[in-house]
């Protein structure tokens, strides 16, 4: 192992131990590491932003003669005004542009990416053609029906609008309440599965870190 690799390995080893010391509770060493980490990550992102975004997206096109890119460049310069409280209002136009674009992306992604695609995925199992092709017609339709019911029940669980009952209790309709109970069950199962997945990832990270600690200096 070269000296540079050894140094980087030692650094990684020490940093791993310092971060794992958080298990014992908050301590100055972990604080030191966390501050170092934030600074390092900021530096890395800044470098990548300059190399991978600002240069190719705002400056390179102008060098190529695409002067239309002056518009985002001016907006970017206005954005720098956000660093000066007195001039920060100048950056509002740039942020308005970003928010408007982000809203359109959110709407487009929600409609086309989720609502339409997930609805399509929900009704696909009911296609007799594909079911017949899979050779398991009944089980596919039953599976599709089960997922459909579970999805709708979950969807109804989130119903917000309610009515004030005679006994002054705010309650939703009986159908919604009943469907909501089923939806809660599906949500609990889903969350359990997701938490188990997170456990899997985090335990995998722990296993990998412990393996690194055990094998770091095994040459």
């Amino acid at each position, binding site marked *: 192992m070269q000296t540079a690799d050894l140094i980087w390995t030692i650094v990684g080893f020490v940093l791993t131990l310092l971060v794992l010391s958080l*298990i*014992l*509770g908050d301590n100055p060493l972990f604080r030191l590491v966390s501050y170092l980490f934030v600074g390092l990550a900021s530096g*890395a*992102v800044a470098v*990548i*932003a300059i*190399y*991978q*975004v600002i*240069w*190719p*997206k705002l400056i*390179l096109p102008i060098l190529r003669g695409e002067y239309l890119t002056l518009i985002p460049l001016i907006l970017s310069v206005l954005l720098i005004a956000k660093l000066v409280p007195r001039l920060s209002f100048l950056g509002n136009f740039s942020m308005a542009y970003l928010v408007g*674009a982000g809203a359109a*992306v959110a709407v487009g*992604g929600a409609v*086309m*990416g*989720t609502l339409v*695609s*997930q609805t*399509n*995925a929900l009704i*696909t199992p009911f296609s007799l053609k594909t079911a017949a092709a899979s050779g398991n017609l009944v089980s596919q339709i039953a599976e599709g029906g089960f997922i459909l019911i579970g999805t709708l029940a979950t969807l109804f669980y989130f119903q917000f609008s309610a009515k004030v009952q005679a006994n002054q209790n705010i309650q939703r309709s009986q159908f919604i309440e009943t469907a909501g109970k089923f939806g809660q069950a599906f949500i609990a199962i*889903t969350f359990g*599965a*997701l938490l*188990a*997945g*997170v*456990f*899997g*990832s*985090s*335990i*995998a*990270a*722990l*296993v*990998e*870190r*412990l*393996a*690194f600690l*055990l094998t770091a200096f095994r040459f």
Partner: protein
Amino acid sequence: MADIRCSNCQTLNPADATLCKNCGQPLLDESISWLDDLRGGSESAAWEETETAAKANQEAQPNEDIPEWLQRIRQRSQTEPEKTGQVSPTEGSTENQNDWLSNVQQTATDSAASSAPSADDDWLQSLRSSKAPVGDEPSGTLVSSLDRLSSEETQADLPDWMANLEPLKSGAEEKPDELLSASSTDWASRFGEEEPPTGTPGAPVDDTQDWLSRFSQPTDGLNSEPGANEDWLAGLQAATGSLAGANDAEISPAGEETDWMSSLRNPDLPGEAQLASLKSEESSTGEKESLSWESELPADLPVQEQTAETADWLKKFDSDEPPSNEDQSISPIDSERSGETPDWLSSISDQETEQPAAPVEGEPSIEPGDESQAVPAESVPDWLKNYTPDEKPEPPVEPVAPISEEPQEAGFSWQSLSIPAEASLVNNDESDELSPFATANLPDWLNQEDNGSPRLPYDEQLIPQPDSTGSSGGQSPFTGSDLGEWLDESSLATPAIPAGGSQPATGGDQPLEAAEMPTWLQSMRPIEMVAPKQTPTEEKHVEKAGPLAGLTGVLPTEDLVGQYIKPPIYSVKLRVSEKQRVHASLIESLISDETQAQLIPADRGETPRRILRILVAVLLMLVIILPMLNLLPALPASDILPQELVAFEQIMSDESILAQGSPVLLAVEYEPGLSGEMQTASEAVIKQLSNRGIRLTIIATSPTGPILAQSLIEKAGYQSDQVVNLGYLAGGSTGLQSFSMAPAQAAPATLQGALASWNKGVLAGVSSLKDFAAVIVLTDDPDKGRNWVEQVQPALASKPLLMISSAQAAPLLLPYYNSGQVKGIITGISGAAGYEGLIQSKGTATLLRTPYQYAMLLTALLILVGGLVSSIITSIARGKAEKEA
């Protein structure tokens, strides 16, 4: 008096009633009923008169009102003939007071007086206010006397005293009549200077200069002679009465002003003004009459003067007085006629020397008033204690004291009114009954006025006693002193004629009997006790002021203590309903709950939690490390492989899809934190791609993705010429969408900063995403995975989209496999281990599988046990709570 008419609802109440039986209004201020009786008209009429009278007074032309006044008098004279016998006593007493006033003039330290004419007018005009509370007369005396005392005694009196003066000044300023205002302010200013009020008589001084000078000798003689306490007391008793005269004379304008201000323009004042103007012409002659025989009298001249005066004017009335009513009063008149007056006077003097307090006891008018009667005897020592005998005005009036005995032998109603009025100055001052009692004089005087008015000749003989009216006007200082409070009460919108003023009117229907006197006392006393706030304010000042208060030693108890203790009485008498009590108790309980320390659930503390956390960490680390050290047996690999895993392997092994040297897009969409899992999961696949010489194009939507990808391919031993790292694609899903539409425009440069050579080298034949043989996404974030499915997959045409997912993203990416949008998925370490098993390759995933499985099982076990334990503890705690409840 028979009944007391309520000033509020006009309801007739019993004489001894203190509060109106109808409206509960205290029955002290009877001015309205009194006015009604006087006019024999309604209150509305009285108000009309009030307006006209106000104008008349402002114009200072009383003559205009004469007919009106006489008309009223005639009306009254038909119904109240018997009251005529009560006129002169008032006059006599008041004249006597004026005599005494002359003595005071001699002895007063400050003899400064206002100009004669103006003072004379003031003094004469004070006749107008004769309708004003005569009962206030002694009160006025008390005020003036208190001023003297207050300057000599404790400063504790000063606040009350000053308080009495302030309203006077303010009232004086409001006086429309210039003369009156001038004198009133003058009087008020003197009060403000704490000067003895006796030193400022105006008109009386000028009118009686000559004979006043004669009084000075005997007065001084009396002063010099060593008098017993009784003498002092008698002298002081007389002094108070005479002081009233002094004050009357000097402060009459103020008194009238008080009437003006308080009675909301008394409609009768014009008539009174006319009467005063008529009488003022004869005032001196009346005095000369008395002087004619005064010379024969030595020291007790004032008494003689008064008695003689009485005899004189009694002659005028004996024919008019109904015998039936005045049986007792007739005999003295007769004896006086037969020249028994000297005897009568001597008997008075004897009794006086023997026992000055006796007449008070024997006073029929005071008999009912036991309290007022007993007080002097007790108060004398008090007075000696707190009253230094340097008072000069008292001795001259010493002879007046015996006059209080008059009723004993001559039950003159006027005597029983006037003399006791003076005696009561001593008795009632401390018992707060003085002014109500004294007010009895006023109606009598008015009745006399009424009676006499029809026969002008008699009126002319009545006129020589203007000083009596002047003395009756002497209440003005008192009322003047209360001017401010009167103004306050004027807001009641009732003609605030002094309360006592109505008493004779109501009681004038029948001859005033001595037996009724106590009812006055009794009826007045509770009023102040029960409803002190409703009590006319001038009475309060009667209590506060005057030398008698100091004499009886009740000044602190009545004035200060009484004044400062009353407010708590209000609070005590607050009417609190049951509901309010309940609310109050509720609020109290709430407050008490707030103040009580709340039970804070005992905090387990940080230490046990930290120990538990460390214990969990140690257990997890042990089950991970022990298999690595082969201290735990390896678990068998699962032979149940997920469909998505199998599908992934099928695509990878399909040469038609991933031919040798075909371009593949590798998206590295995971964070460095999950690089351990992701590198392990993707290791086998990257090796497969490397072995097949796949041209790899790397892109990432996370900033560190390109660098992680770099280390990934380096570990896999990928050749650099087979790889192009397009670096970081900014913009998340937006950037990905742009990339899916125009990859060359969205990712123009490489990680090294050089321009990406699309359609060249590694990217040969690749101008759009569908030119890639496959797209493999390494992600730990379901959102990023979804972005690739939603944004890129449609642009791939039929080319497969494969995913190597972290365990945490798998549950949300599986649906995309089920929907066919994703052709295969490898999930985490367990999936990678299964994949390695499929391709018969042993990589890192296989090595880490056992510790990973142990850790997962231990975690499941800990969660189960932890859940069971905490549910048991919770149920036990709940049971305890229910038992406690």
